[in-house]
C-alpha cells in the first residue's frame, strides 16, 4: 500500500489525559507522529489536535476510527495535503555579529520572507512561517553561518472543505 502524508484533525473536549489516550493509539500501531499541535478551535471550549502522519490510507482510516471512539473526542477527520491549507513556523537564533559581517544573511532574510523578532547585542531571532520545504531551505542556507538554536512547530492546517463539527454539536444540544 502506498504511503502518503495525512493531516488528522481532532475536535475534542479539553480534558486531562486525552493526549495520552490519542498518542497510545499511534504507539499500539507503530505509527510515528510526525508532528503534533494542540490549540483552541473555532468553537468555544473545544480543542483541536492537528496530527501529521506518513502512512497508508487503510491505517489512517483505522486510526481516525479509534481516535473518534474515545469518549472525549467529538469528531476526527483526515485529509491529504491537497485537501488542506497548512503551515509550519520556525524560529532561528543567530549570532548578531553575522548580521553585519555576512552580507548574504540579509539577502536570506529578505528572500525567505522571514521576520526579525528581536535583536540584541549577542543574537537576533528570525521567525519564518511557511511550508516545510521553505523552512528547510532557509535552514540549509543559514546553516553554514552557524545557527545557535533552531525550532520548528507542528503543522497547523485548515481544510478546504467544511468540517461538519458545529452542526454535530448543535444536534447534540437539541
Amino acid at each position, binding site marked *: 500500500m502506498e504511503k502518503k502524508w495525512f493531516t488528522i484533525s481532532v475536535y475534542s473536549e479539553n480534558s486531562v*489525559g486525552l493526549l495520552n489516550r490519542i498518542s497510545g493509539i499511534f504507539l*499500539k500501531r507503530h505509527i510515528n507522529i510526525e508532528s503534533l499541535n494542540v490549540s483552541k478551535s473555532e468553537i468555544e471550549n473545544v480543542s483541536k489536535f492537528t496530527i501529521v502522519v506518513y502512512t497508508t490510507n487503510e491505517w489512517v482510516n483505522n486510526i481516525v476510527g*479509534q481516535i*473518534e471512539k474515545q*469518549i472525549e473526542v467529538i469528531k476526527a477527520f483526515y485529509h491529504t495535503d491537497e485537501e488542506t491549507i497548512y503551515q509550519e513556523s520556525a524560529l532561528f537564533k543567530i549570532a548578531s555579529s553575522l548580521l553585519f559581517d555576512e552580507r548574504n544573511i540579509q539577502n536570506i532574510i529578505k528572500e525567505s520572507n522571514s521576520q526579525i523578532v528581536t535583536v540584541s547585542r549577542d543574537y537576533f531571532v528570525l521567525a519564518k512561517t511557511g511550508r516545510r520545504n521553505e523552512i528547510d531551505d532557509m535552514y540549509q542556507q543559514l546553516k553554514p553561518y552557524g545557527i545557535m538554536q533552531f525550532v520548528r512547530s507542528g503543522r497547523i492546517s485548515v481544510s478546504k472543505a467544511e468540517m461538519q463539527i458545529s452542526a454535530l454539536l448543535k444536534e447534540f444540544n437539541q
Partner: protein
Amino acid sequence: METLKKEKAASTEQGTIKISGAEAIIHCLLAEGVDLIYGYPGGAIMPLYDELYKFQDKLTHILTRHEQGATHAAQGYARVTGQVGVAVATSGPGATNLVTGLADAQIDSTPMVCITGQVPRQLLGSDAFQETDIIGISTPVTKWNCQVTKASDIPEVLAKAFYIARSGRPGPVLVDITKNAQFEEFNFSYEHCKGVRSYNPYPKPNLKSIEIAAELINAAKKPLIVFGQGVILGEAEEQLKALVEKAGVPAAWTILGLSALDTEHPLNVGMVGMHGNYGPNLLTNECDVLIAIGMRFDDRVTGSLDTYAKQAKIIHFDIDPAEINKNVKADVAVLGDAKETLSLLLPLVNANKHESWHNEFKEKYKIEFDQVIKNDVYPTKEKLTMAEVIEEINIASGQKAIIVSDVGQHQMIACRYAKFKQTKSNVTSGGLGTMGFALPAAIGAKMGAMDREVVAIIGDGGYQMTIQELGTIFQNKTPVKIVVLNNDHLGMVRQWQELFFESRYASTVMTNPDFVKIAEGYHIQSRRVSEREDLKAAVQEMLASKDAYFLEVKVEKEDNVFPMIPSGASVSDIRLK
C-alpha cells in the same frame, strides 16, 4: 436516596445533604442499582470500606482473594446479567492488579466500573507509599478513565462512568479517587448521566444501507450469518432467530456469540474460527453473502485475511463505527444497535429456504462427526476425553447450565460441545485469552444468576492462576460447580509445540498438587475421576449438590483439539487431524 434524605435532612439547615466523599460513592452505586460489588481493601480505599461496613445491609461487598479475581467476578456477573459489574481496589498494587481484568473487559466489551483508591491529592506525584499512575497505566485498556481529587466531583464522574460503561459498545471504566476526596464532606446530590456531548453510543441506522443489505440477502444463493456478542449485548436474540428462520440462512457463531441462538436450532451450523466447526469455516469461502452481526472479524475467526471470504459480498452490522472496515472491508455497513437494525431489516427480507446450501453444511458436519466429533464425544480409547465430560454435563444439566470456561484446550472443547438453550449462558475470556479467568468469573456468574446452575470448566494450568478464589467460594458459600480437566499439561501450548515446534515441549509439563486435597482444605466437597465408568455418576453428584463442588477429571494427557486452522492459514485450510 429517600432514606438518605430523611436521615440527613434533620441534621442540615436547608435540607442539603452533607456527607463524605466515601459515603457519596455508596449512594452513587445504590442510585445506579448496584447491590453487589467485588473488591479488596487497602490503605487508600479505607474510607470507602468504612462506609461499606455501615451500608452492608444495602450493598454487599464480596472480598475476593486477589484484585484480579474481583475484576473477573465483576465480569462474570456482568456477562450473565447484562448489568455493570463493579470492582474496588486500593491504590498501587491493588490498582495494578486490576489491569488484566480491565484489558479482558475492554476486548470482550464487558460493562464494568472499577473504583480505585489513590494517595491524597497533596501527595500525588511525590512517589508516596502505594502511589501509582493508574490513570496512565489503565488508559489503553479502558473505555474511559478519570481521576477524582475532590469530593464534590464524585457524583458526576461516577454517573458518567456507569453511563459510559453500559452504553453503546460496553466496556470497562476506571475511576481513581484520592483519599482526601473520600474524607471530604460536601453537599451531595445525584443525577443520572443522560449523555456526553462528545460521545455517540447509538449511531442512527441508515435505512438506505439496510435496504441494500436486504436486497443482497434476498438475491443470495448461499448466504451465511456469522453472529457475535453484539447480538447478546444488544439483546437481539429474538431478532436474530427471526432473521435466520425467515430468510433460511445458516448461522454460525463466534466464541462470544455462543448461546445467542439455541445450539440445537436446525439452522445453527456451529462455531467459526481456529477450532470452530468444519462446515462454517470451509463454507465461509464459498458463501456469496456473508452477514456479520455484532462481531469484529478477530484474527482467530478469519485466519488469513488475504483469503477470507473474498468471493462474498460482506454485510457488517455493528454498533461501533471503528469496527467497520477495520479487518474486513464491508460492501454494506449497517451501523447501530443490533436489535434496532435487525428489526428494521426483518420486514425487508424475503422468506427463503436454501435447502441445497444447507445440505452442504450437513455433509461437512458428517465429515467432521466421523473424523473428529465421534472420537471426542464417544471415545473408544481407554483414557477419558474432555469432550465426553462436557457431554455428560449437557445431559445431566439438561443443557440449562451456564458454562464458564477458562483458556486453552478445555475452553475450545467446552465451546465446541456445550449445548445451550438460553442466552448469556457462555462466559469465557475470548479476546484476551486470560488464563485464570474462569474460577473468579464463575463466582460472579453464580451471584448474578443464583437460580441457575453455574459450571466452571478449567484446565489444570489456568486453575492454579487464580486458585486462591476457592477462599471466596468457601467464605461466601457460593454454590459454584468447578470441573478441572486435568491433563497435567499446558495442553494448548503443548499441542502447538507438537504441531509447529517439532515436539519440543518447553515448559508445558505440569507437576500438579493434589487438587482434591486443596479443595478439601477449603471445605469444598470434592471428587476425582479417572475412569469412564465413574464419570456419569460423578457429574450427576456434582450437579445434585446444593453446595459448591469440585470435580477433577483426569483426562488423556496428549490429546489435540481439532479441527484447527493453523495460525495465519486460510479458513479453507482447516485441518481435521
